[in-house]
């Protein structure tokens, strides 16, 4: 290493705490990005493996209407079109030891070599036992080990809330080595699966190998009855995976936010290190070091720092990813589809990108201080007051740039640009713009505080406030970093509160019945119908006033496969949904006669549909084009929902089945008595049913909501953690810089307690300023998250709900964080003998 490099590098060795904090700041930022990426990659990998396992060589799928596909269609296909490379499938979910498994019913004879992963399962003794013994299943060796079961064991499983006893007769991999792709999969003979899932006579899917065989495809199409859809396997896979894209993008944005706060930390460290080395840099300039050499040196230092932080961040990231993986998978399971991730995959590319990100962010963050260092004058004309003077001159420029950045942010957020990236860029510009504006706001705050302190007569307070003003170039940065972190916390917190409020209100609106009975949707695509005549039978229970019905199916539309709910609400005076832009009461009153569809807001958003637009739906009576008559707020899924009245459904599908019932009780009815009678009447039912009260559904929904946002809360806390390190580092450096001033004050008569008090007053004031400045930014971030990010990500409009206590709490947290960060520097200031401080100069 050159002497120039050594001279600079050793500065950090002499200030190890400063070095450690900077490295830690980068490390935490990189760790967040890497952990999110690794968790996402592992879920993608698990998803791809499970799709590969279940898709095999198949190129196409046949899917059907509300009940699925009749079994007879499979026979016709094989006999009439001669398509040998085809296999039926029935799928559902099974709970075993608190774990959810995907039960796949497959036809041993049809499979052969089509799904390579099933080959072992379709051969040998295990296959024979699946065919000949009832309730026998195979499990992947990986899952069996995880669940602590082995061949020969009885498995007590729950399917659709009903207990079943199955027998594990072997591993899905046969004698081959464990296959992670089969993790979470339980294989059974198709007849067993049909019986367990209540799908006797019906199939969920028929998988086909058509490849580019156009002639065969035409033959197959000719055989398909109305409502049966032929789709490509790849298209379906990508559609399923796309579901989680917005969710993952939001997580990435949160992790990048932490990196942004981390970059403030690097800027802070580098700026301080340049300031501390002013004399050293000036000496080097006198000796002949060029500006460019110094610029290169500081940037090299930053790159090294970023690299070290990046490496440490990779370690933290891998550890955190394991924890996050669980949270991410749980959210995907709650909102999108069931996914079991057994294999934690460390993608080397993610690690390389993470390390590079650390270096790039560090170099970018250090650019300003590096330029400052390169401009160091060899004759040291710029004393501390000169540096501060230059910083103050820069404030209007910074504020101007900040205003431009805010303007760009508002443009990106207000203009309805496609995709989520412009909106996320808008939020980042908002934070950056406000950060640049904050020195000006801070100056105003300091001036005001100066006047107040002058009036109060407290000289220590006056000294503290002036001290911050005198070191604005450094303290301002620490305050800006804390402001941004607290603002993000306020913004995310307000968004979550708003979301919770909107969901609670939405649940109140849609849950009008007192008790709900439904088939639990054991298959991902369609729920088996309720027993015939159940609605009529339950209507006779004493205390029941009316029964509403629902039929949930998946249909093919011009927008792709969509979930459709046919409703028959017993009361029309209170709309079942809150509608957007139209009078909901009027629309609901004419709902029974409506020849149109009501679509959820996410559906409208996803498919860019507006009132009056036509949607073509493939019905049991052929394709029908229906206008969008209303758009309602809905938070159940970001995939969207179509709602029509039961009358229209009956007319178009000729399907009398229901999948859910809503029981409306008389005002005087005792809900417990009705539940008891209901349970008694349902005991005979072979059909597994879910019976839940209005309150239970509400509680479960809110619980799911809290789970979904658990990961956001973790990321939010981490961002504040990074900012805390930032302010701690800044205070330490400030304290170091001011040690002579403190020594002079001590020599003049300030007691150690007063010295510590002075430091704490300053840090407390910095926390107060950051907290106060964070409120407007936090609210702006909340508005952006609620009205733009969430709407564009998931299609959910929410009411922004702002209350004073969380805002005040944020200010208190900010002050406490600053005081905590100031505790150590205060202790140092108290313990340093004045002679040491004076000698050091």
């Amino acid at each position, binding site marked *: 290493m*050159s*002497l*120039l490099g*050594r*001279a*600079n*590098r*050793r*500065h950090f*060795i*002499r200030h190890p705490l400063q070095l450690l904090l900077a490295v830690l700041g980068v490390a935490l930022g990189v760790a967040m990005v890497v952990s999110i990426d690794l968790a996402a990659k592992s879920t993608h990998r698990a998803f791809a493996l499970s799709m590969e396992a279940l898709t095999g060589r198949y190129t196409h799928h046949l899917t059907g209407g509300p009940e699925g596909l009749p079994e007879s269609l499979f026979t016709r296909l094989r006999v009439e079109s001669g398509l040998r490379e085809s296999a039926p499938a029935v799928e559902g979910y099974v709970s075993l030891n608190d774990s959810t498994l995907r039960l796949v019913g497959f036809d041993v004879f049809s499979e052969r070599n089509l799904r390579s992963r099933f080959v072992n399962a379709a051969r040998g003794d295990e296959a024979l036992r699946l065919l000949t013994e009832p309730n026998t299943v195979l499990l992947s060796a990986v899952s069996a080990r995880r669940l602590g079961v082995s061949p020969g064991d009885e498995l007590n499983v729950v399917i659709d809330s009903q207990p079943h006893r199955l027998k594990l007769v072997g591993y899905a991999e046969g004698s081959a080595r464990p296959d992670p792709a089969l993790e979470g999969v339980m294989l059974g003979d198709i007849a067993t699966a049909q019986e367990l899932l209540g799908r006797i006579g019906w199939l969920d899917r028929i998988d086909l190998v058509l490849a580019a065989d156009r002639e065969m495809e035409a033959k197959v199409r000719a055989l398909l009855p109305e409502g049966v859809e032929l789709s490509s396997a790849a298209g379906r896979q990508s559609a399923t995976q796309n579901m989680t894209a917005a969710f993952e993008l939001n997580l990435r944005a949160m992790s990048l936010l932490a990196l942004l706060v981390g970059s403030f930390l690097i800027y802070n460290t580098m700026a301080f290190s340049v300031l501390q080395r002013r*004399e*050293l840099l000036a*000496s*080097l*300039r*006198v*000796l*002949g*070091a*060029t*500006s*460019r050499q110094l610029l290169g040196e500081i940037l090299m230092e930053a790159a090294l720092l970023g690299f070290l932080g990046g490496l440490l961040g990779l370690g933290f990231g891998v550890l955190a990813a394991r924890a996050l993986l669980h949270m991410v998978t749980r959210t995907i399971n709650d909102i999108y589809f069931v996914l079991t991730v057994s294999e934690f995959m460390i993608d080397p590319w993610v690690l390389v990108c993470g390390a590079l990100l650390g270096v790039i962010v560090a170099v970018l963050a250090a650019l300003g201080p590096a330029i400052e260092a390169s401009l160091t*004058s*060899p*004759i040291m*004309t710029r004393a501390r007051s000169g540096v501060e003077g230059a910083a103050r001159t820069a404030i209007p420029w910074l504020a101007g740039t900040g205003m431009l950045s805010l303007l760009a942010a508002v443009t990106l957020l207000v203009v309805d640009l496609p995709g989520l990236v412009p909106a996320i860029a808008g939020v980042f510009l908002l934070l950056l713009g406000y950060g640049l504006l904050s020195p000006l706001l801070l100056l105003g705050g300091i001036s005001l505080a100066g006047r107040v302190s002058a009036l109060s007569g407290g000289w220590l307070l006056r000294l503290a406030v002036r001290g911050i003003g005198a070191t604005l170039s450094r303290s301002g940065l620490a305050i800006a970093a804390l402001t941004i972190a607290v603002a993000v916390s306020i913004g995310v917190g307000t968004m979550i509160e708003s979301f919770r409020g909107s969901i609670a209100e939405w649940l109140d609106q849609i849950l009008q019945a007192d008790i709900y009975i439904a088939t639990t949707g054991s298959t991902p695509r369609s729920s088996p119908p309720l027993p015939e005549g159940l609605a009529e039978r339950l209507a006779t229970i004493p205390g029941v006033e009316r029964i509403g019905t629902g039929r949930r199916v998946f249909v093919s539309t011009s927008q792709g496969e969509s979930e459709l709910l046919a409703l028959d609400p017993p009361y029309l005076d209170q709309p079942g949904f809150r509608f957007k832009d139209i009078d909901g009461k009027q629309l609901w009153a004419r709902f029974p006669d409506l020849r149109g569809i009501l679509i959820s807001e996410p559906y409208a958003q996803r498919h860019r549909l507006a009132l009056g637009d036509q949607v073509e739906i493939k019905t049991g009576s052929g394709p029908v084009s229906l206008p969008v008559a209303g758009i309602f707020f809905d938070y159940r899924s970001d995939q969207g929902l179509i709602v029509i009245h039961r009358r229209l459904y009956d007319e178009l599908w000729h399907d009398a089945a229901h999948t859910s019932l809503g029981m409306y009780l008389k005002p005087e009815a005792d809900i417990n008595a009705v539940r008891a009678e209901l349970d008694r009447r349902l005991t005979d039912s072979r059909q597994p049913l879910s019976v839940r009260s209005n309150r239970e559904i509400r509680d479960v929904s809110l619980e799911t909501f809290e789970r979904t946002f658990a990961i956001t809360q973790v990321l939010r806390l981490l961002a504040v953690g990074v900012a805390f390190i930032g302010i701690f580092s800044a205070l330490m450096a400030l304290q170091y810089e001011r040690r002579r001033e403190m020594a002079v004050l001590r020599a003049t008569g300030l007691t150690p307690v007063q010295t510590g008090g002075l430091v704490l007053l300053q840090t407390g004031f910095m926390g107060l300023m950051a907290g106060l400045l964070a409120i407007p930014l936090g609210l702006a971030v909340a508005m952006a998250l609620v009205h733009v990010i969430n709407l564009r990500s998931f299609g959910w409009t929410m009411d922004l709900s702002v209350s004073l206590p969380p805002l005040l709490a944020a200010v208190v947290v900010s002050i406490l964080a600053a005081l905590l960060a100031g505790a150590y520097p205060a202790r140092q200031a108290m313990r340093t003998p004045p002679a040491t401080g004076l000698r050091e100069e």
Partner: protein
Amino acid sequence: MTIAPVPILSLQNVSHGYREAGMWREVLCGVDFEVKSGEQLALVGQSGSGKSTLMHLMGALDTPKSGRILFEETDLAVMGEPQRTLWRRQHVGFIYQFFNLIPTLTVIENVLLPLELNGTPESVGRPAALDLLNEVGLVDRADSYPDRLSGGEQQRVAIIRALIHQPCLVLADEPTGNLDAGTGEQVLDLLDRLVRANGHTLILVTHSAEVARRADRIVRLADGRLAAEART
């Protein structure tokens, strides 16, 4: 016939000043003089007379507001900052009152730094640096950091750092200002011996008449103007 030494540095009508609180403050006003190659010149004057400013200008640390500073045939006043840096690196050695050693480099590294900046590898420069350190009695402190050395020792290191790359011009700003009388004497003796032995030109800024008397010529500044010039 004897050939008169050629001027190595020629200042022609040099003026300089600073803007302070919106007001222009003139520090140097129309200064003219020459320094001959190998000459030892003392620049004396009271505090605020412009000595240090003039030294900064002669060392190309700054450029005058007007006038010319010719180093041989080159006008330092018209050079850009990168050129001045390269010139300074090659031709000037600085010695300061407060030593200005790099605290993060060891004694030997401090001495080697000017060589390295001029492109001489550490391995090549090391024997010469050790010789010089030996000459000033500090070879056993080669691997110590400056804060472990006394003031006199630090200044001795600063002197050999200023001379190691054989500059034409050595600029010393109050080199004994921070040392006791005895140590100051020793340092000046060392500086005198090394400068004369290697034929360097020395410009010494001081307000001590005693120190100034060691030089070949004394130039006195008062209120930014050349007040007097005398041979010792």
